[in-house]
């Protein structure tokens, strides 16, 4: 059964068929969301938000692009909105995330000093990714987390492949600059 057929059935009132789409695409939506928010709970909430938005606007889906492309677009927009809403994260939340990352790091026989060092490194990388511009970040997440081709990213971001390449290149340079002090540690 193709996506188009399922969407047609959902629009015609068979709402239970939407579960088929959710089951099929929940992993990619969740993976993209985690690339933006770096947190399991937030990513799950975003996944839910994305599917609810998709369900409500399913009738507006023209079918010009792949359903996955359309869903990726909703995911990116929802994730960016979520980040803008929570831009002013308080100090306690940032500190809390850092402590949580300390406990969530797999031990692999590392001593506390090494664990602390790894958590600090993750924290720095996360912050460096978060400081990328919206377009650079979107291109970076879709490329690294979802392993999409530049053509697919261009279709999602509604820009040219050249623009995507430029965003990725700039993101790479920015990250290299921000993480230069970690190299060689």
């Amino acid at each position: 059964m193709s996506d188009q057929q399922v969407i047609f059935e959902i629009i015609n009132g068979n709402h239970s068929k939407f579960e088929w789409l959710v089951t099929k695409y929940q992993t990619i939506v969740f993976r993209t969301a985690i690339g933006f928010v770096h947190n399991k709970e937030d990513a799950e909430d975003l996944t839910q938000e994305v599917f609810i938005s998709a369900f409500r606007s399913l009738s507006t889906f023209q079918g010009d692009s792949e359903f996955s492309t359309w869903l990726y677009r909703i995911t990116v927009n929802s994730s960016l909105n979520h980040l803008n809403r929570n831009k002013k994260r308080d100090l306690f939340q940032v500190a809390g995330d850092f402590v949580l990352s300390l406990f969530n790091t797999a031990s692999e026989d590392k001593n506390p000093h090494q664990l602390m060092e790894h958590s600090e490194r993750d924290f720095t990388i996360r912050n460096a990714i978060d400081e990328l511009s919206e377009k650079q970040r979107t291109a970076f997440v879709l490329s690294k987390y979802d392993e999409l081709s530049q053509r697919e990213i261009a279709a999602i971001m509604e820009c040219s492949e050249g623009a995507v390449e430029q965003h990725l290149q700039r993101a790479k340079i920015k990250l290299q600059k921000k993480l230069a002090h970690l190299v060689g540690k």
Partner: protein
Amino acid sequence: METDELITEFVNREKAITHNPYLATRIMQNLTAPQRKTVGVLRYAAIAACVSTLVVLGMTIENSLSAAPREYTALNINDSEMENFAIYNSNYNEKE
């Protein structure tokens, strides 16, 4: 370690995080329960009604208490007319 390797390692670790196996069920449950928003609005309305009732009740009680005439009772006791309790306690006049 190169920057690219660091980033790839970090990304791979985040990619390894899996979602709740009941996520799809949770989403479908949310889709089939549209009345939830109404309940939320009703809850706020109920809280507002309770607070308003409490305020009105408080004001009514306060008004009724301040309007009612108060009857004070005061004991006017003249100490000089009080019996001396020492009379009952002393055994000075008693014969042994």
